[in-house]
């Protein structure tokens, strides 16, 4: 059989090429362009090779130390967020009602934080946690605990973590709830007949059935927390000191605060690469799980 040659298809693909080129490839290339140059202002650029990258990846330099500090803080933040929000989300999903008017009530209640714009979330918590006029900060201080998120880095971290948990746990809960709803009643009935304990039901029925949505929840929450910018920027502005300066905040400081375009470009490329690698790992794991399942069902 000979293949039919039809070049009309190119006309359908071309617009996509154009859009992708202008929206992604060209801007990215300007970043690549910046990352290998240095400037002393007046729009004069000098070739700098891979020096920014060398600096960036060497913790002993000023740039490298700053980058690894921010990277470490971001990873720590993501790790804390995942260890709190995933189990908490599962717990919330498990304790949600399975039918009746309360289901709708719970769903609306849980969707509320998800609907609030991110900088509004930051503002809400910024005011809420203030020790002079904020309800939370005032109450905590009057309970005799010295709490000040603008002064103590631990307090700042706790505030940001609590804020993120408040904002995003419902997403995990809603995803898990969807996973739980897809389990047929017969599984629970069979487990009762088999005398399974509550924990055994969770381990042998609910957790395996939630595995896929949980993977998605972990991916979403990891990426979101790894790229978090708005809320901590509004709440703490990265402070006190550099205590809550995550990668995204540091990048903005570097690029738009100091106008070190070369360093910032190198940093954003590495940042981007890290995210791509993690996405790829998740994608591979997820498709493997799918393939595994298909093979089993076949």
């Amino acid at each position, binding site marked *: 059989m000979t293949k039919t040659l039809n070049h009309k298809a190119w006309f359908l693909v071309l617009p996509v090429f154009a859009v992708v080129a202008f929206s992604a490839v060209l801007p990215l290339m300007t970043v690549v362009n910046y990352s290998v140059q240095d400037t002393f202002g007046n729009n004069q650029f000098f070739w700098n090779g891979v020096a920014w990258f060398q600096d960036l990846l060497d913790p002993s330099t000023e740039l490298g130390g700053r980058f690894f500090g921010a990277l470490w803080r971001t990873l720590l933040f993501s790790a804390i967020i995942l260890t709190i929000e995933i189990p908490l989300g599962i717990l919330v999903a498990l304790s949600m009602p399975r039918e009746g008017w309360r289901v709708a009530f719970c769903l609306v209640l849980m969707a509320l934080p998800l609907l609030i714009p991110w900088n509004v979330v930051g503002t809400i918590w910024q005011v809420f946690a203030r020790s002079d006029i904020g309800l939370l900060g005032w109450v905590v201080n009057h309970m005799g605990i010295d709490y000040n998120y603008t002064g103590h880095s631990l307090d700042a971290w706790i505030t940001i973590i609590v804020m993120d948990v408040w904002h995003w746990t419902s997403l995990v809960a809603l995803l898990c709830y969807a996973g739980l709803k897809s389990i047929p009643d*017969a599984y629970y*009935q069979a487990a*009762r*007949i*088999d*005398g399974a304990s509550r924990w055994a039901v969770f381990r*042998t029925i609910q957790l*395996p059935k939630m595995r896929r949505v949980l993977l998605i929840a972990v991916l979403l929450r990891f990426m979101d927390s790894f790229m978090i910018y708005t809320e901590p920027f509004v709440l703490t502005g990265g402070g006190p000191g550099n205590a809550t300066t995550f990668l995204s905040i540091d990048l903005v400081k570097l690029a738009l605060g100091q106008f070190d375009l070369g360093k910032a470009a190198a940093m954003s490329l590495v940042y981007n690469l890290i995210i791509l690698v993690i996405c790829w790992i998740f994608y591979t794991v997820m498709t493997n799980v799918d393939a595994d399942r298909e093979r*089993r069902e076949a």
Partner: protein
Amino acid sequence: MARISLDHLAHAYKPDPQGPQDYALKEIDHVWEQGGAYALLGPSGCGKTTLLNIISGLVHPTRGRILFDDRDVTDLRTEERNIAQVFQFPVVYDTMTVRENLAFPLKNRNVPSSKIAPRVEEIARLLDLTPVLDRKASNLTADMKQKISLGRGLVRADVAAILFDEPLTVIDPHLKWQLRSTLKEIHRALDITMIYVTHDQTEALTFADKVVVMHDGAVVQTGTPEELFERPAHTFVGHFIGSPGMNILPCRLDGMTAYIGDDPVILQRTYPELASQRQVELGIRPEFVSVQRTGNGLPARLKRIDDIGRTRIARVEMAGRQLAASVPENFSLDGDEVSLIMDPHRIHIYADGHLLPGEPTTGGHQ
């Protein structure tokens, strides 16, 4: 091992049932004898599964009691009753191997593992699961999974009864027979009470020693397959069992004679005078009506003849009613005027759906 008695059992899913229309399960008194193979037969939505779930304790009845031997278990939780249940769709624990699946009910009941291992091997041998014992349960076919579900019930030595809720629905047709004969073998080998819910009469009649027919939330007849065929206690049983089902014709009674339209049919029993508002019907299975080309039978009009494999079934119209009748081997078609011969011993009379016993005639009119 136990006899299971249902004592004035009724169930309504609504919280405050008023009349009988609110009950998914109308009052039932029934005893399942130890070691019996029962089928619970009825169309979808007739309350079979509700009844099954009440026995296993998944549903708490609105009224009445359930007794295992003489012990009242109505308020006992499922896991405290010695009941196993196999569901319509196979339930296996995906993350476990077949062996772990079979051991699961014992492990949950804290049976020492030295006792679990031989028991699991034994049950696996019984169900031909030995070759797949160490495979993941989720990799197997539907019939294998159903065997695992069954195995999880059998593995408990103390199990009083195994309940099957349409267990063959998702099984390939050629495996259905095989699995059903496995069930029968196990029933013979282990002397366990089995209650098998189905809407498929072939399944019910081939599996069970006793068939309980349910209709609209109530038990309409309990009996052996022969009894259901020969003496349906209710017109529903008549047309639900048999293929094609029983012919049910409205009629008028006069002592030993039933009038279908204006045509008289002589009966073998006498029936008392009935209140005129009661709906009287005559029932006869197609097997006991035959079409004749001519003769002094009931006049009818032949519509068509269906060849259903082993036999031929004539579809006829008589006094405006459709009937099925058997076709004698030497029957040849000549026009559509036929005459119907009914076996008088096989005619049953129903009032408002229920069988009227009638009085045996001892010669002459009364």
